[in-house]
């Protein structure tokens, strides 16, 4: 195998509910909010009309990559070019799918939060940010799934410095082993710079440059990837070798009723 380019870590499947059923639509209608009333005992009550609202995930995006590998390239190479190419294309497709999902979740987060000046790179801010964010979702019955935070690699310095100087055992552990990925009960996932973007990704208009994502795992959003990543190879007329294509059909949705379990963080 050839050496492949560096890839950013994938997080979507760790923070979303994942569906591989092959369905084009996942329907999830919701009820209008119902409130109970308390009053002096009288034997009567008021009735409101229950209505349902449609909400559905559509597998709407196709992430694809393709190359043509000439026969002489493969024959004259001492490495398995075909295998390397499939692996590289597959990784690139997965990365873009991941970027799409993370940005869709951040776009549609039900809550917002602005960090203190300096954001995550200022070690002194970390305790406050983690405390503030936890407070945003604390008390919801869905909080038992655990909290996650997605940051970019440039933010890690603040976590490591804060970890090294907070407490005794925790500081010692961080000093010995580096950042363990959990801070204040929040699982911290790190992706590379540029994942949070203000740009068009497929049909999504992402508005997330300078933002990060926090929330409750697996509750607010679903990520659908029927059949996962697929590939094909075909002979092409007038060319030796083969054309290789790799693709994934995906969709993602932040459920309206659960959107407040996600917090879009603005770095200040």
């Amino acid at each position, binding site marked *: 195998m050839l050496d492949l380019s560096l890839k950013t870590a994938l997080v979507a499947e760790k923070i979303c509910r994942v569906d591989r059923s092959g369905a084009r639509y996942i329907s999830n209608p919701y009820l209008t909010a119902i409130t109970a009333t308390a009053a002096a005992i009288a034997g009567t009550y008021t009735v409101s009309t229950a209505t349902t609202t449609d909400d559905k995930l559509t597998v709407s995006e196709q992430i694809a990559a393709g190359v043509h590998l000439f026969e002489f390239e493969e024959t004259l190479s001492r490495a398995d070019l075909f295998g390397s190419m499939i692996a590289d294309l597959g990784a690139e497709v997965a990365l873009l799918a991941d970027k799409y999902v993370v940005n869709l979740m951040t*776009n*549609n987060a039900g809550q*917002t939060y602005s960090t203190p000046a300096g954001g995550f790179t200022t070690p002194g801010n970390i305790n406050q940010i983690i405390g503030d964010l936890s407070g945003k979702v604390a008390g919801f019955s869905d909080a038992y799934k655990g909290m996650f935070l997605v940051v970019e690699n440039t933010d890690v310095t603040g976590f490591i410095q804060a970890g090294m100087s907070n407490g005794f055992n925790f500081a010692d552990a961080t000093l010995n082993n580096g950042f363990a990925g959990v801070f204040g009960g929040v699982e911290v996932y790190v992706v590379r710079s540029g994942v949070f973007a203000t740009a068009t990704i497929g049909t999504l*208009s992402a*508005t997330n440059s300078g933002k990060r994502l926090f929330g409750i795992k697996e509750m607010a959003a679903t990520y659908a990837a029927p059949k996962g990543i697929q590939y094909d190879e075909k002979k092409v007329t007038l060319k030796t070798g083969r054309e290789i294509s790799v693709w994934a059909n995906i969709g993602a949705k932040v459920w309206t009723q659960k959107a407040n379990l996600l917090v879009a963080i*603005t770095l*200040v």
Partner: protein
Amino acid sequence: MDKQEIKRQLDFLGSEPVKEWREKFPEKYEADVARLEAQLEKLEKPVKVELPTEPKVELPTEPKVELPTEPKVELPTEPKVAEKKKSK
């Protein structure tokens, strides 16, 4: 983020494909635009470059040389000889 990137993001936020998001989250849109405009203003504000002022070099003042004053030589006064009263 440089000025060009901030302007690109502002244009993007105001573009047609983002219309649905703007309508769904007007407060997020306003906050984002305000944040980016503040960053742009910060970058566009002319930076006052203060030239370092030359330090005042104070020339060492020459120490005043006080000339030794000549000791006053007091001339001995001749003792006054009181005139003797003439005895009658």
